[in-house]
């Protein structure tokens, strides 16, 4: 995000800098040309006049003085002259010389020998002023020449020093101003972009939070009418509709459950009342079996609504930090005697605590489902093995057995509703429920037959990162049996026994009573 703002402002500033630099270069060129043109015009004009004067002035003792005066006067009208430059002779020279031999007349600083030799070594184009680099001077001279009747040449030179000075001033001022503007532009663009992208990031974060759990919250909506405000509103509008749909699903399943449960309760109550009143033994059996059927129907109703909700990603979760190791261990402790009675062995291979963020009640039901399945389908003297491990951010629980494995025809549709083996007594929702719950927790389930025989179910759940650990809600903590157990364990300072909710209640009770 930050780097995006950085990149955008860098590119924007670069484009601006290059653009403005190009404009300045053109402007600079234009100004330089204009100055050159003006001084050339002045030079050409002045040299004409001087040539005229030199031609007309009689070549007597006063000649040198008259022409010198005129040249001197001309030099005072130098264009682009800097007020600060003290010695004007430095900037202008006047020279009259034949094609060879010493100068006839020299007005300027020094003796003019260097100037003359420099002019002579330069290829002269008549009528057009030209540049002459004179030894001992930093800046070149712009020289215009005219040939007069007596065969000598008159040269008028103007130093380009002042012109260059003006241009350098222009460049320095521009560059410092340009640098400041580019920097300021960069800063403005950077902060504006960062603010803009910050809003996008807030929206992204809020959206991902909503996607994970809380459908009722919304992305932050700034009242702005720009694209981002529009994005936020569009997202919120979409969320409204999703929430509405999920809410409708909840209402539907809830009212369906409610509408079915009330008559079921009444029927069950009546059957039980009938059972407790004096009925003959021959009537007892059908009533008891009717109650059993009713309970199975209820369980089916509950599970199938759960599966329906889970398939629609609308299962209501109350998430807490759950130690899978402890949870599976507890479930195995509960089931082991029953499995042993049926001649089944069960074991857990685990490297210790594996934390996931999950709804413990649902996970209990998932594991209970798996164990119930094993109990119902495995032949005696089979072995069930749970292995728990962590791998690349995932908690993996593998349940393997040494039974006959899944039916080939069933295996393909294992996680679909109502799919069950031919001899199964269940309602065929068990594995659909397992898969749905695991998926709602962001995990996955795969079922295969082991090559050496027997079934293998692999459950993957995302690990809970402890650095993101937040104190769970007080109620959620209290309600989490794992947590209660830990509290009990600390409270009793016992070893690794499996303590119970009953103890927890007692301890809490004692605490409450002081």
């Amino acid at each position, binding site marked *: 995000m930050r780097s995006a703002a950085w990149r955008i402002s860098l590119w924007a500033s670069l484009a601006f800098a290059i653009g403005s630099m190009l404009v300045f270069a053109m402007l600079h060129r234009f100004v330089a040309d204009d100055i050159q043109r003006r001084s050339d015009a002045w030079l050409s004009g002045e040299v004409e006049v001087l040539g005229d004067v030199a031609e007309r002035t009689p070549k007597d003792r006063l000649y040198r003085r008259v022409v010198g005066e005129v040249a001197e006067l001309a030099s005072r009208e130098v264009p682009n002259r800097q007020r600060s430059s003290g010695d004007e002779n430095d900037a202008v020279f006047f020279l009259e010389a034949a094609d060879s031999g010493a100068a006839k007349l020299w007005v300027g600083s020094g003796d003019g020998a260097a100037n003359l030799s420099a002019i002579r070594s330069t290829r002269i184009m008549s009528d057009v002023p030209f540049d002459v680099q004179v030894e001992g001077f930093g800046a070149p001279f712009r020289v215009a020449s005219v040939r007069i009747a007596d065969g000598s040449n008159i040269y008028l030179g103007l130093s380009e020093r002042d012109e260059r000075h003006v241009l350098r001033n222009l460049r320095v001022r521009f560059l410092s101003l340009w640098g400041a503007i580019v920097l300021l532009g960069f800063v403005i663009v950077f902060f504006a972009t960062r603010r803009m992208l910050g809003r996008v990031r807030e929206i992204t974060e809020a959206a991902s939070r909503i996607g994970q759990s809380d459908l009722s919250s919304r992305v932050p909506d700034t009242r702005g009418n720009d694209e981002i405000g529009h994005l936020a509103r569009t997202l919120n509008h979409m969320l409204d509709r999703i929430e509405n749909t999920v809410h409708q699903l909840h209402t539907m399943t*809830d009212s369906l459950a409610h509408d079915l449960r009330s008559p*079921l309760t009444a029927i069950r*109550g009546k059957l039980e009342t009938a059972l407790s009143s004096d009925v003959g033994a021959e009537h007892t059996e059908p009533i008891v079996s009717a109650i059993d059927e009713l309970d199975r129907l209820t*369980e089916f109703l509950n599970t199938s609504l759960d599966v329906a909700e889970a398939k629609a990603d609308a299962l209501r979760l109350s998430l807490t930090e759950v130690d899978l190791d402890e949870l599976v261990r507890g479930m195995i402790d509960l089931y082991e005697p*029953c499995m042993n009675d049926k001649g089944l062995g069960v074991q857990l291979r685990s490297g210790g605590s594996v934390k996931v963020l999950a709804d413990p009640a649902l996970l209990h039901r998932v594991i209970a489902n798996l164990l119930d399945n094993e109990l119902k389908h495995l032949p005696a003297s089979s072995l069930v093995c749970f292995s728990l491990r962590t791998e690349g951010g995932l908690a993996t629980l593998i349940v393997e057995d040494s039974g006959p494995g899944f039916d080939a025809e069933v295996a393909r549709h294992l996680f679909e509703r109502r799919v069950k083996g031919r001899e199964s007594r269940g309602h065929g929702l068990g594995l659909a429920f397992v898969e749905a719950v695991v998926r709602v927790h962001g995990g996955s389930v795969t079922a295969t037959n082991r090559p050496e025989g027997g079934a293998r179910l692999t459950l993957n759940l995302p690990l809970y990162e402890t650095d993101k650990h937040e104190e769970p809600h007080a109620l959620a903590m209290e309600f989490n049996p794992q947590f209660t157990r830990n509290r009990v364990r600390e409270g009793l300072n016992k070893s690794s026994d499996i303590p*119970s909710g*009953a103890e927890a209640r007692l301890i809490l009770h004692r605490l409450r009573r002081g």
Partner: protein
Amino acid sequence: MRLLLVEDELEIQSFIKQSLTGAGYHVHTAGDGNTAALFASKQVYHGMIVDLGLPDQDGIDLILQLRKSGVSCPVLILSARRSVDDRVKGLELGGDDYLTKPFAIAELLARMRNLLRRNSIQTEDATHLRVCDLELDMIRRRAIRGDEVLNLSPQEFVLLEYLCRHAGRVVTRSMLLTEVWGMRIQPDTNVVDVHIYRLRGKIDTEGREPLIKTLRGVGYVLKGS
């Protein structure tokens, strides 16, 4: 003991009332929240059974409202809803209990008795529990019957402790699962029964009076002193 039953479905109301009356309670019935509030303001009840789906208001709101007005008796919440509201969890932590419809009457009675006992002041020795000739040493986590120390696993000890604390009263399988194992599941296999059989095998040995009784289709009861 006087109980207030708040339930709008008349059929359900009638059989719950019938079985509660049969169990020796004095039961008043209300079909909606307003009537219930009216009753509760006029009389003191020892316990209440409240259905969440009342025609005029939500059962939880009714309970919270009654609590605010000073009614402190324990409440058994009946719910036909699928998910357990967080507020119900809150009430459960406050000492109330909830039951999802449909339920076994025995379960309702057992939980109601449990609630009423919880609310009454108990005289309880923190270190020893004694039922008939069975004694539980809570500190050394040992169970002794007669003069023989029973060889119980920690799990079995916890189970026995729960039964002893509810001696003379019915405990259902789902109560055991919730209270002893800390999970609300409904296994369709007899996992709890096997634990009880094993425990019974260790306690009710040959030649002793059996303490743990099975009530078919309902649950278990440990013979009271």
